[in-house]
Structures are given as structure tokens and as C-alpha cells.
């Protein structure tokens, strides 16, 4: 198929439909509104349902219900809206149901701003909801990658019976880039657990996240843990760039990684070798990529559109072997390549 020019939000909607998503429940919030707009126009054409709920809490519980029926379903929102959805996400994780949640994030805390930010790293990777759970978090850096990861997200959600989050920022949502939709068969997963009617042939399925017996819940937690370990083993995605001779290795995801690539280019022209580890999955975090770093590397630099959140995972991965520095802008301000270069030079003592 030929390339088409699409806005990130619309491309995400188109990719979801291509992945077999038929149901969307949501509530408006900037800067993701083109996703529900697109879904409201396109889902009825494929026999699907778009429904604007009365609130974010209602929307995520509608997703919970639809996921329980075994259909491909999604919701999208932006930071404070995702915060409202955390209760439902925890329930869905607990009940082991597949769904996709898109967060086109904005500045915070609170209502914050509507400009791009990455201050939802903790919320996304540590679970804003209660309980012992994780879910995969994909962080695309381009519109093409958003499309590819959306299709992947639905497959992974079904395969592991888990909510999957796709975390973009306002820039990914609003930007236009050429995309190509590769025809790929949606992975077919049997869903014998779905509450889609017994037809008089089987016992009723029950979908629930409540365990009265502590032992039963602990057993459930152990089973979930095994699933998380399996995802850590199989679902890590990462891009590494220019690691061989790097004196400093930057760690950045999403649009920030693109800014860092510009900074790396500037440094290269000045004779400073800088590498990049770009986590594509924020959870599971690509810890193994840090083992590829050479002896020449003196320090890591976590670059984020936040006051410093992913830096915690970088420190865990680095395990104290080298210093981990931070450079970030927040509140909807966007780091510049020059700012990153300045920080790299100060780390190396070459102002």
C-alpha cells in the first residue's frame, strides 16, 4: 500500500481498526480528540460501535465489559483522563482481560497543560491503579511506529490477556508524517474465558477481580507474576544507536529520542561520540540493552519531558556501574538539541 500523510491521532485510530478493533469508548480531552473523532466516523462503517461515555470512569468500565465479551476494544485519553481510568485498568489487569489504552499525554500534575509532556512515566509503568500488576507500555517515536505498535498492542493484549498501553505525547498526536499500513493478519487467539453466551453448551464464565480467600488471591498474584515474567522475557522492544564508541549514552523515548538524535549529530560534528538507548517498551524496560554499552562510556544521560521519572529505571538497569545524569524540560516545554548538547558537554567537562 502506498504511503499516506496522516496526523498521529488519526493514524492510531486507523491502525486500531486494521487490527480488528471494533469498539471504542471514550471521553473527550485535548490533545487526543482526533482519535475519538476518527473512530466515531469510521467504526460504524466496519460494523463497530463508537460510544462517548459520560465520563472517563464510565468509558474504562465499558471497555472492561466489552473486553469480557472477548472482542477487540480500546479507549484513549490524555494524562488526567488516564488518571481517572486507573481504577478500571487495575480491575481489567486483575480480571485478566485484553484491551488497548492510548495515552496522548500532556503536562501535569492536575489539569496541567495541553502541551506535550512525558510526566506520566510513573503512572504508565508503575500502575496508577492499585495492586500488584504491570502491563506493557509502548512508546512510539514516529507516526509509522505508532501504527505498527498499535497493531502489535492488540495482539499482545490478547496473547497475555492484559491491558496494553500506547503512550504518545501531544506531538505524536498532532504531527503529520507519511505512513504505510502493512497488511498483517491480526493474531487469532481463542478466548474460552469470554462471557459471550453459554449457548447451553458450557458452564457460565465468570469475570471478576475479587478474591475473598487470601490464599486464592496470593495464588492469583503468583500466576500474574509468571505472566509478567513471560512478558519481560518476550516482549521487550528497544532501539540502540551509535553505542560502540559512545562517551555518553543518552536514554530517551518517544519524541524526545528524536531530539536526542539531533543532539547526537551535533556532538558528532564536534568530535564527541554519543549513543542512544531508546526504550520502545517502557515496561518491560530494556535492561539488557545496557549490557551492550562499551568500556568507553563514562556516563548515562536520561533525557525526558518531565522532572525525571524514567531515570529511576535507568538507574536500576545501570545498577550503580556508572553515573546517571538527567536533563529534562517539563510543563509542555520541549527540550532543544542544543540544551541536550550543553548537558552532554558539561558531563564530559568540555564546556
Amino acid at each position: 500500500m502506498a504511503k499516506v500523510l496522516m496526523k498521529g491521532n488519526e493514524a492510531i485510530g486507523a491502525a486500531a481498526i486494521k487490527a480488528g478493533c471494533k469498539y471504542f469508548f471514550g471521553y473527550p480531552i485535548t490533545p487526543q480528540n482526533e482519535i475519538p473523532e476518527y473512530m466515531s466516523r469510521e467504526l460504524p462503517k466496519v460494523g463497530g460501535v463508537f460510544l462517548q461515555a459520560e465520563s472517563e470512569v464510565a468509558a474504562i468500565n465499558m471497555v472492561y465489559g466489552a473486553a469480557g465479551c472477548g472482542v477487540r476494544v480500546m479507549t484513549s485519553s490524555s494524562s488526567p483522563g488516564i488518571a481517572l481510568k486507573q481504577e478500571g485498568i487495575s480491575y481489567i489487569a486483575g480480571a485478566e482481560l485484553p484491551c488497548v489504552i492510548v495515552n496522548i499525554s500532556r503536562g501535569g500534575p492536575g489539569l496541567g497543560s495541553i502541551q506535550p509532556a512525558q510526566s506520566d512515566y510513573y503512572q504508565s509503568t508503575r500502575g496508577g491503579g492499585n495492586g500488584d500488576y504491570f502491563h506493557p507500555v509502548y512508546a512510539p517515536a514516529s507516526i509509522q511506529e505508532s501504527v505498527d505498535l498499535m497493531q502489535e498492542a492488540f495482539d499482545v493484549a490478547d496473547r497475555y490477556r492484559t491491558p496494553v498501553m500506547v503512550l504518545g505525547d501531544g506531538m505524536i498526536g498532532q504531527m503529520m508524517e507519511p505512513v504505510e499500513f502493512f497488511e498483517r493478519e491480526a493474531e487469532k487467539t481463542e478466548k474460552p474465558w469470554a462471557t459471550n453466551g453459554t449457548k447451553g453448551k458450557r458452564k457460565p464464565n465468570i469475570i471478576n477481580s475479587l478474591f475473598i480467600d487470601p490464599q486464592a488471591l496470593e495464588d492469583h498474584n503468583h500466576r500474574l507474576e509468571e505472566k509478567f515474567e513471560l512478558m519481560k522475557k518476550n516482549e521487550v522492544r528497544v532501539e540502540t544507536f551509535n553505542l560502540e564508541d559512545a562517551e555518553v549514552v543518552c536514554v530517551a523515548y518517544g519524541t524526545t529520542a528524536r531530539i536526542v538524535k539531533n543532539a547526537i549529530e551535533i556532538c558528532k560534528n564536534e568530535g564527541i561520540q554519543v549513543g542512544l538507548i531508546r526504550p520502545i517498551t517502557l515496561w518491560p524496560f530494556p535492561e539488557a540493552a545496557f549490557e551492550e554499552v562499551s568500556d568507553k562510556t563514562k556516563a548515562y544521560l536520561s533525557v525526558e519531558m518531565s522532572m525525571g521519572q524514567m531515570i529511576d529505571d535507568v538507574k536500576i538497569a545501570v545498577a550503580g556501574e556508572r553515573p546517571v545524569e538527567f536533563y529534562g524540560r517539563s510543563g509542555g516545554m520541549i527540550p532543544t538539541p542544543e540544551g541536550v548538547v550543553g548537558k552532554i558537554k558539561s558531563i564530559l567537562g568540555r564546556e
Partner: protein
Amino acid sequence: MQERAIFAGFGGQGVMSMGKLLTYAGMIEGKEVSWLPSYGPEMRGGTANCHVTVSDAPIGSPIITNDATCLIAMNLPSLLKFESDVVAGGIIFVNSSLIDNKVSRDDVHAYYVPANEIANELGNLKVANMVMLGAYLKAMHPVKEGSVIETFHKLFTGAKEKLIPMNEEALKRGADCIVIA
């Protein structure tokens, strides 16, 4: 080649469309492109701008700060706001119908195009953006004019098809304003 252009004006002047046409034309030519709009709680008649990158190599950051190769300013606030973002040796296109000021820097080249006057002569003020785009294409040629015309045919379909000749004419009239020594 990497062209990094900022298109800016007030809401309704078609600055987003200018950027999109350039982006689309670049894509048709197989180049790497990105289009990044300003978005925010803007008021009607407030400022609007978009960042367009057209490149032979993959594009890193789609954001243009202090490194624009070009600025297309459709109104005065846009010129004042973005003038300093253009690199030394860069080009600024000024809509002289609405901007009396001259470009204050002497390390950039400026073209003054009376886009609104020309659009009015063509009978539709709305094509002022295409006049500016025509001037920009003639001076910078980041993409071929033919690719932009091809884009017209892709985007203006159905009832909008009748708008193509006027838009083509607007591009030509804009190009005529540029005399390259």
C-alpha cells in the same frame, strides 16, 4: 538537503494548508517529511503556525527552533515572533500586504510579496496563502511545482475541483514576484 520551514500567520490565513501542501508534495517525491502544527488554547483570529521539514535523510526532531532555513510570515506578529528562529543565511518571506515592517536582521535574505493584493486581483482573498507558497517554491524549490499541482488534484476533489485553476494561478503570480539575480 534539509528544508526546515516555519509557516505562520493568523487563524484563517491558510498557514496550516500551505504547510500541508508542501509536506504532501514532498511525500509524493519520495522525500522524508514531517508537519508539526502549533496547537493550544488559541482564540479566533489568533496566531497559527506549523513546522515543515522536507529532507533527503530521515528526520530527527520535527520541531524547528533557532534552525529554520525559511520563515513564511503572513502577518506582523508572526514576523516578530519567528524572525530570530531563522539561521544566518536563511530566507524570510514577508506578506507585505499586511506587514509594513522590514526584516530587522541583515544576515538573512528577505522577499516581500504583496500576497493579499495579488489574491484580491485574482478575485479571492483566500488564495493569498498560495501566492506566498508560489513565491516560496520559486525561490527555494524544496519540491517541484509540479508536485504541488499534483497535490492540488489529490486534495481538491469533487466540488472543490473547480478551485484548482485559481490556486494554480495564485502559485504562478507568487512565483512571478521572485526575481533571482
